[in-house]
């Protein structure tokens, strides 16, 4: 006969067993979730590090860690994923992908100021152009955009059912000899990662034109389909605006503008203060009043001795006033022309050995 004690043992054993089993099942579920989330967080951090390393080392790299992610959206400068938001350390134009991502640094060089960013895009990306009116202007516009896009991406055209892509240099060469080609709206089924940029002087969207970005040359507007299917316009000022738009839409474009403006404002302020400081110290060193002599010595550094008198050269003065004009133009947003002017004045300073 079974004793009470034995029944007690069986019962308490069952209770403890069920409790411990439930506890460990819950724990392992919680633990594995923590592990998975921890791994995903590490992946996002690693992506940030890889982008930062590409930025500082200037060497192209690859990254493939987003395979298991459900959510992956780029709202510059933040990457939104399964593990929340992460602000990237460097300016990145990111086309999210769960496959292999190529990272490449690119810069705009204005002599005394450099604006750099990192492209991060799937290795299957190709940018195809459809210039509906094949004018010299359209071809020049395409060439200027392509120059600012990654070297390792493929570029080409899509016309009707014909779509061809090649390397950057191959495509630029093709463009220069393609004056007689005519292009139809793209109808071909393209592989994932392809982006079609349609270029025309004006657009009529009622005909259901296909593309990822539309450049209207007459108005300087870029169009892209919004979530409701309508066409959203935004203005563009330069090829980098278009390149940013192609990479990530309007948010990418706004990000590029705000980042460039912020860095340019800081760099201009530093350069202006520095040029004033240098001019002042050079003048104090020479301990004489300046006599402007623009017709005699327009191209000397600092000070020039002539007939027993010292003359301050105009090179630094010209550069300084161009920096002042650049600061004023930043307020209106139309600063690129002025930026190019400052680059030319700085080049003159370098040519004369002043810098």
């Amino acid at each position, binding site marked *: 006969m079974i*004793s*009470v*004690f034995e029944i*007690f*043992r069986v019962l*308490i054993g069952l209770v*403890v067993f069920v409790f*411990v089993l439930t*506890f*460990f099942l819950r*724990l392992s579920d919680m*633990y594995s979730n*923590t592990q998975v989330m921890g791994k995903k967080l*590490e992946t996002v*951090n690693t992506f940030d*590090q890889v982008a*930062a390393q590409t*930025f*500082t080392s200037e060497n192209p790299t690859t990254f493939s860690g987003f395979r298991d992610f459900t959510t992956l959206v780029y709202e510059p400068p933040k990457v939104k994923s399964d593990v929340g938001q992460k602000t990237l*350390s460097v300016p990145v134009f990111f086309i999210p992908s769960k496959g292999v991502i190529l990272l490449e640094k690119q810069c705009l060089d204005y*002599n*005394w*100021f*450099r604006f750099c960013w990192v492209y991060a895009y799937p290795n299957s990306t190709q940018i195809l152009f459809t210039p509906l009116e094949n004018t010299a202007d359209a071809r020049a516009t395409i060439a200027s955009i392509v120059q600012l896009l990654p070297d390792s991406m493929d570029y080409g055209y899509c016309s009707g059912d014909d779509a061809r892509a090649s390397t950057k240099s191959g495509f630029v060469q093709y463009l220069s000899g393609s004056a007689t080609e005519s292009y139809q709206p793209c109808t071909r089924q393209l592989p994932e990662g392809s982006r079609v940029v349609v270029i025309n002087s004006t657009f009529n969207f009622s005909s259901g034109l296909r593309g990822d970005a539309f450049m209207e040359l007459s108005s300087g507007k870029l169009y892209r389909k919004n979530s409701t299917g309508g066409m959203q316009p935004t203005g563009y000022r330069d090829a980098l605006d278009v390149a940013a738009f192609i990479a990530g839409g309007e948010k990418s474009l706004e990000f590029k503008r705000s980042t460039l403006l*912020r*860095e340019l*404002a*800081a*760099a201009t*302020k*530093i*350069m*202006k*203060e*520095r040029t004033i*400081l*240098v001019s002042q*110290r*050079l003048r104090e*060193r020479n301990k004489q009043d300046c006599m402007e002599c623009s017709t005699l010595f327009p191209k000397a550094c600092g000070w020039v001795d002539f007939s027993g008198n010292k003359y301050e050269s105009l090179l630094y003065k010209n550069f300084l006033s161009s920096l002042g004009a650049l600061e004023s133009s930043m307020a209106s947003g139309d600063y690129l022309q002025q930026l190019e002017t400052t680059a030319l004045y700085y080049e003159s300073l*370098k040519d004369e050995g002043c*810098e």
Partner: protein
Amino acid sequence: MMKSQAAITEYLVLVIMIVLIAFIAVVLLFGFELLNTGTEQAKSRERRALFTLESFAASTALNGPQYQKGSFFEDARLTAATCGDLENLFGSGWWAEVRVLKDKAYCDSLPVWRRSKCQQDMRREENIVCTKQNYPSCGIWRFCAREEKMIYTSVPVNVYRKINNTVDLGILTVGIPSGG
């Protein structure tokens, strides 16, 4: 009766000890995870310090145009730059210092009566923090707020003295807060 009571007690003690082992195992597991997270955070700060150092060293706003490879600061640009300007370029949450290392051995090449003054001048220059008023007779540039607990990292650099047109050896030090 007493014997069965003792057996029940013994059994209960056994069960409690088993549950205790399980509890210890869980605590150790989570403690270990927390330790890992702490280590990861420390590594993340070290990485950030290194990245800030590299960005600073390579910045075109601070480097002279002669060397494209960076780490060739121009003293006038260092003097003109402020913390706010550099935060707009590199982000915030760091402290930086550039200091010149004067070549004191040069003084030994001078006549004896000039050596002492030469060394004094060099030592003074090395210890003066630069402002727009004392430029170029200074040798330290500091940017942003320094906190009590920071991780520091340093590398050798050059400082181009624009007015005298010479190049000095220098040290760039970057600090990142080490707190949580």
